[in-house]
Structure formats: structure tokens, C-alpha cells
């Protein structure tokens, strides 16, 4: 692995940690779902840099499309704000 790939890996891990804190501590659940989508995005980038493109492809398909739809439907049927 070259040096620049390592720096890029470090950058995307930083983005992942920021988004994870955001998803854990936000009261508005819709914004937490958006942060979950960011987590899945940067996780796919990490798999990609570590040379596993098939895992990254599956993570992209499930994390971006399917889990967002399921979470938004759940929020629609319950409440948006957390007490």
C-alpha cells in the first residue's frame, strides 16, 4: 500500500468516526438516518482501499439504498423526534 492510500484511508476513517458520533447523539432521527448513510459511504471507501471491491459493492448497494428506505419508513410509522 502506498503512502497516499494510507493517508486517504486515515481521512475516511476520520469521516466515519465523526458521522458515527453524529448518529449516536442527535435527537432528530431523520438526521441520524442521513448520518448512517454517510457511515455506509465511508465504510465502502475503506473496503475499496483495502482491495476488496466485491464487499464494497455489496455495502454500497445495501447501505445507500435499502437501509435508508427501511429506516425512513420506520420513522414515518413512529415519531421523528426523540425525547
Amino acid at each position, binding site marked *: 500500500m502506498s503512502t497516499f492510500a494510507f493517508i486517504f484511508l486515515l481521512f475516511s476513517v476520520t469521516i466515519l468516526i465523526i458521522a458515527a458520533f*453524529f448518529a449516536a447523539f442527535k435527537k432528530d432521527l431523520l438526521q441520524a438516518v442521513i448520518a448512517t448513510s454517510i457511515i455506509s459511504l465511508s465504510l465502502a471507501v475503506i473496503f475499496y482501499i483495502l482491495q476488496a471491491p466485491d464487499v464494497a459493492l455489496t455495502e454500497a448497494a445495501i447501505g445507500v439504498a435499502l437501509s435508508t428506505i427501511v429506516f425512513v419508513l420506520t420513522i414515518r410509522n413512529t415519531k421523528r423526534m426523540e425525547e
Partner: protein
Amino acid sequence: MNDVFFIVIMSMLVLAGVIAAIRFVKGPTAADRVVAMDNISVIIIATLVFVAYFFQRYIYIDVSLVYAVLGFIGILTIARYLEGGI
């Protein structure tokens, strides 16, 4: 030529990603954060294609293709939820 070009373009893309991530942290409403997420995903599609060119792996482009096809479905769902007609 090729290495210098790669480093300059990659640092520009990382700069764009950092700026969009600042808007994602700052943005007051949910819609602002969705716009920031959309922009970050477009930047990541471009970055993955460029890294595939640098590593010379043809198979790596498929990840970017899946993002370009499926990336807008989640945003469309959130927009329908904000509109109130899902």
C-alpha cells in the same frame, strides 16, 4: 508527470470532501445535511474512478457504477418524506 498529477488531483478532491463535510456538521436543518451528503457521494464517485485509474484495476469501476445507479434512491425517499406524501 503522472505521480505529481495524481497527488495534486487527489488533494483537490480531499479538500472538496472536507468542505462538504463542514457543511454537513454545521447545517441547521435536515435538508442542508441531505445536500451535503449528495455532494459528498458525487465526490466519492469521482474519487473511486480516479483511484481505479491509478491502481490500473478495471474491476474497481463497478463500485462507482453501482453508486451512480443506486445513490439517488435514498435521497428520493428522504425528499418524499419531507414532502409528506410517502
